[in-house]
């Protein structure tokens, strides 16, 4: 859809009563590197985890290319709203003009007036058709999106090589031999071929994270999501991990990085999003964000971290 590799539309996320994400829309193009920055608790991780549905959005849609990962959000589709009973009932109370219809669509959205169960057959059919056309199995989608965690999350019961080959082989993307060949190639790339048969508990933090990164690469992902990849590392190991991520960026890998390493964000990102109180409060090139911040919260935030 409109050239975005990954797109988030009208995303809201509530945990019980607390509203964490409040209306986020963002598209990420192929080859683009996007950095998410913002104060602690602002919702950066939640936003990132919604991108591969580790968190299920409360409202809104997540698209991977032409594939819809979430359920259909009727509020994002005026034609679906217009097919609902609520719409036709309320429209009768107006003069029925186009302007009134548009206003009504906006009102239904604003006041959350749709009730799935009472909207009639046309509405249900529209929803179902939409799903049938675009919906993709979430496991298939996740196989195309790599994820790197703050705490590495290597599989503790598997050797390094098994960590690299498990998913590609289980999902039948590669044979065991192909997966191991690729695994070896990746291990050589990060200079750790001798670690192929050891268990994760024997590795240093920096080694673990670099292996977690090549574990994502072993799936040939279209995009990689990083959630503070260096925050859990001892300072002397941050460099080796950032070097690897920088290499990937230079090779043209599409990536989204949540990070507190402002210098790194500035250097690697094409676009920086400042997340604050559950919305994207400002977005722009690293120069715009770091050198000419407009939002007062961003200015304040940069003063604290720089």
């Amino acid at each position, binding site marked *: 859809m409109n050239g975005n590799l990954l797109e988030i539309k009208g995303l809201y996320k509530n945990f019980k009563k607390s509203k964490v994400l409040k209306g986020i829309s963002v598209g990420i193009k192929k080859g683009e590197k996007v950095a998410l920055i913002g104060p602690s608790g602002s919702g950066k991780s939640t936003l990132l985890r919604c991108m*591969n549905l*580790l968190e299920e959005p409360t409202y809104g849609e997540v698209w991977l290319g032409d594939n819809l990962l979430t359920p259909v959000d009727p509020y994002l589709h005026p034609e679906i709203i217009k097919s609902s009973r609520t719409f036709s009932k309320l429209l009768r109370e107006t003069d029925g003009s186009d302007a009134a219809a548009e206003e009504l669509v906006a009102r239904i959205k604003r006041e959350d007036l749709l009730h799935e169960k009472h909207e009639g057959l046309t509405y249900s059919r529209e929803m179902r058709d939409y799903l049938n056309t675009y919906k993709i199995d979430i*496991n*298939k*989608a*996740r*196989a*195309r*999106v*790599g*994820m790197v*965690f703050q*705490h590495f*999350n*290597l*599989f*503790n*019961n*598997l050797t390094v090589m098994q960590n690299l080959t*498990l*998913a590609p082989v*289980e*999902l039948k993307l590669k044979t065991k031999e192909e997966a191991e060949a690729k695994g070896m190639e990746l291990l050589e790339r990060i200079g750790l071929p001798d670690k192929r048969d050891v*268990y994760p*508990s*024997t590795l240093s933090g920096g080694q673990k994270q670099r292996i*977690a990164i090549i*574990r*994502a690469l072993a*799936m040939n992902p279209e995009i990689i999501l990083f959630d503070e990849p260096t925050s859990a590392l001892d300072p002397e190991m941050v460099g080796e991990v950032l070097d690897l991520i920088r290499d990937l960026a230079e090779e043209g890998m599409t990536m989204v990085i949540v990070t507190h390493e402002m210098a790194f964000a500035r250097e690697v990102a094409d676009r920086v999003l400042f997340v604050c109180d559950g919305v994207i409060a400002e977005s722009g090139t690293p120069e715009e964000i770091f050198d000419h911040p407009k939002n007062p919260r961003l200015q304040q935030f940069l003063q604290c971290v720089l």
Partner: protein
Amino acid sequence: MTFVDKIAKLWSLRGVFAESLGYSLLIALGAVILGFIIGVVLAVIRIAPKNNIVVRLLDKIAVLYITVIRGTPTLVQLLILYNSVLVSFKSMSTNLLVPIIAFGINSGAYMAEIIRSGISSIDVGQMEAGRSAGLSWLTTMKKIIIPQAIKVVIPTIFNEIIILVKETSVVSYIVLKVDSRQKWDLLGMAEKQGLATPACYLTFLFFAAIMYLAVVMLLTLVQHLIERRFKKNER
């Protein structure tokens, strides 16, 4: 009877006692395997995300099963099973299947809770890493979570096995009552021989106690060996 006579008597019965010890162990082994399988399945059902009606229903059944089994005496369960199954399958009384099933069902409820606690102790990041690589919940469970959970609960599982080995002696009560042609478990054999030679009764009981103790000590040793092996595996 002198002490030496009693020991001589015991020695002359070594064949039947050895056989009965074998039956006790066989019942325990069968029950452990059955209980472990039941336990893993129940634990997975209990821990599964309750996002569809089938899982919710299975979960309710699992809870009921665990509650009832853990809430009633083993002997009562055993008696109920014997008296219901025995009526319809007379021939089953002569083999070990009924006690294996009875103790397996019983132990399954305990194992379920043990394994469930093991699964809960595994960092959620492991599941997240599996899911974000595109593996299904069940595959991640099988390949990543359960192997790690089992390792965590090995000591507790061994406690359960030890309890089970001792608890198999409960069948002696039924074996004596129900059918005199049956295979005798260790305690049952001690009782039977004790009735035949009352002077040696206490000696046989002591002998049975020593045998149980020996088996339990052996199991404890195996437990330590397994734990050590696991540790070495990951260093």
